[in-house]
């Protein structure tokens, strides 16, 4: 397994490094850190190429701190500093070149709400990446998990949304982790049914069906726990969940995603805002 970490010398970047450390240890993955330096465009004055070199130089200093931080956790990482106009695009290109299995970044810290705040770079990744993206919640670096201890897959409740379960099962089996399935039920779907109870019953049935599917996909099935959280709104349903240290949530892409591309749906975006564990968003299957 190979991880590409998108790094900036900010607290957000450190969150990403902390998550990369936990993932690398759990899945015995190799790690490459990429720092993208802003391209100083020609502005008609002398000194610009020298400034660009100076930026690269700074970038190398920053990234070596990240490498040192990973080394302190016993993870060896390669590092690359590159010049690019778009961080997200450079990150995706680099990860594809390295045949990475996962892109790891920190969310943005300067937002006001929620555990995962999506900055512009993360936003661009979450709407175009062909590779799964792991997001560290903000502040993750201050209280990181040593290793990942369990994988939770958020199973879609709406037909058409992509099911992240196959990816979650592969991931969990790679490290022999327990897996559980999560269905979020809220009264917001009421229009489709006569009563909340009926909806909930419908969801529980769906979740059970998924469990059967999961069991079939994995003959020597690990223990798959099925979990239904319900509330009046999605947010209140999320609040009822309790997360343990070392939990990792996997969510799928929206039905609007192009095949094999990632596209964060509205529900997934709200899930991201309501949880404070690392989240992996998976591109849509073909």
């Amino acid at each position, binding site marked *: 397994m190979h991880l590409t970490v998108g790094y900036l*010398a900010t607290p957000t970047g450190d969150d990403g490094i902390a998550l990369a450390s936990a993932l690398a240890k759990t899945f015995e993955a190799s790690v490459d850190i990429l720092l993208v330096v802003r391209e100083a465009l020609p502005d008609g004055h002398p*000194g*610009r190429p020298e400034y660009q070199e*100076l930026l*690269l130089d700074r970038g190398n200093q920053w990234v070596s701190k990240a490498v040192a931080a990973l080394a302190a956790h016993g993870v060896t*990482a390669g590092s690359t500093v590159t010049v690019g106009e778009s961080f997200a695009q450079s990150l995706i290109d680099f990860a594809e070149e390295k045949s990475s299995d996962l892109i790891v970044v920190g969310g943005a810290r300067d937002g006001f709400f929620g555990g995962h705040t999506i900055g512009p770079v993360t936003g661009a990744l979450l709407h175009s990446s062909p590779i799964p993206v792991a997001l560290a919640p903000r502040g993750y670096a201050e209280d990181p998990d040593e290793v990942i201890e369990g994988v939770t897959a958020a199973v879609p409740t709406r037909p058409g949304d992509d099911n992240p379960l196959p990816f979650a099962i592969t991931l969990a089996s790679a490290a022999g982790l327990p897996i559980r399935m999560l269905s979020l039920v809220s009264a917001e779907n009421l229009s489709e049914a006569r009563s909340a109870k009926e909806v909930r019953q419908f969801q529980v049935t769906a979740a059970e069906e998924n469990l059967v599917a999961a069991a079939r996909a994995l003959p020597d099935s690990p223990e798959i726990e099925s979990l239904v959280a319900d509330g009046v709104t999605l947010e209140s349903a999320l609040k009822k969940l309790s997360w343990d240290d070392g939990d990792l949530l996997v969510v799928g892409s929206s039905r609007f995603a192009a095949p094999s591309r990632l596209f964060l749906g509205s529900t997934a975006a709200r899930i991201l805002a309501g949880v404070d564990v690392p989240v992996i968003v998976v591109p849509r299957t073909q």
Partner: protein
Amino acid sequence: MAITEEPSAPAVGSKGLQAGALGLVGNVVIGLAAVAPAYSLAATLGYVVLAVGDKTPSMFLLAFVPMLLVAFAYKELSQDTPDCGTTFTWSTKAFGPWIGWIGGWGLAVSAIIVLANVAEVAAIYLFKFLGLDDLAENLTAKVLLGSFFIIAMTLLSARGIVVSERVQNVLIAVQFGVLIIVSIIALVRVFSGTAGAQAIMPQLSWLWPGGLDASSIAAAIILCIFIYWGWDACLAVGEETKNPGKTPGIAAVITTLILVCTYVLVAYAVQSFSGFSEVGIGLNNPNNTDDVLTVLGTPVAGSIVASLLLLTVSISGLSSTQTTILPTARGTLSMAVYEAIPKRFANVHPRYMTPAFGTIVMGISALFFYLVLSFLSENALADSVASLGLAVAFYYGITAYSCVWYFRRTLFSSTRNLFFRGIFPLLGALAMTWAFVYSATDMIEPDYGYTAFGSLGGVFVLGIGMLVLGIPLMLACFAFGTKRFFRGETLTASTEVKVPDTF
């Protein structure tokens, strides 16, 4: 933990530096964008007319010569010693730390003043574009919008948001399109006799600076330095072009022709269409001095073109701030790396990858300068252009002298060196010195410009004051800093400056 690879050294990605990124068109556009012609003309034309009357076109021709001579100095120095500190680095290498520091300060001062000037121009022209002429005359409204522009442009630059190349191309095309179309319509109407009673026939004698006294010429040159300011860069950025041997030279010639021809054309059009009467759209009407271009817009080509002209000037000014702030922020960064100013200026923002601290300090200084100027001066625009001319002449002069002195040992090794490293820069430096000293002496008189502080002219106090302010600041940097720069430990004539290492 199964990863046992050896830690590898950080690799620089394949993309790396984009050498040879610019073609001929890109090079020309960058040269023109750095000059911001529409805004420069709007800010100076009226005052040049005020100084030299109908000889304005001749001044546009004459002022170009010292600019060209100084540009050779830039070219030679930036090829020998490429560094983001430019004037600071070169003059330190030639004349030692103290003069180097002041040279760097001159560069920073001009960026501070031009931000204030852009804010004023953009505010006035935006109000006029929106049809809010009352607000354009209202000091409070003008200062509020101007301050907003300073803050906004500073934050955009600190955040690393720059005008993209494509937008830059469009802006330049629109600027020249509008200026040339309005001028040609004006001239056609003058020749066909439909321009009105105030119009006068263009004359060839406008191109010859005869019959002017030295004071007027010095004043006009100081103003005209501003309208060509930034042009020199076109020669200095040679290494970025696709064919470094040929392209920069051709680009410089094309840029020069476009600029000089357009300026002379606009000057001819404005003078012949408006005439020199003291009423109506006449150029000697004091109400028109600060915006000759607009006055011309509606009578020449109707209100739509006039509005376009206003908007062009406003946007041209705002986009030009970036070509000023970015190089200056790089300059302060370089100064800080060599420990000439506090280390904080050497910080690069880890997320936006810009020298954010230096940029913001510059923005705050510009805001402060703008507020002081606006509340002290009846005509902040005029006074800031004149004081900007002083600052630019100052650091151009230092750069040109540095060139001659730095290359003093190799001057006579070839004829080419003698001219391009010796005679041309020296003549440019002497011209800058003459314009600087002569204008400064004139500016002492309280009736120069629009403000006076007791027996001293306001422009003198602001222009020279800002430069002199550098001395106490330099001493403070010496007293409280590491002193290594001033002892000549970080940067000397023999220092190999490639990438300033972070100490």
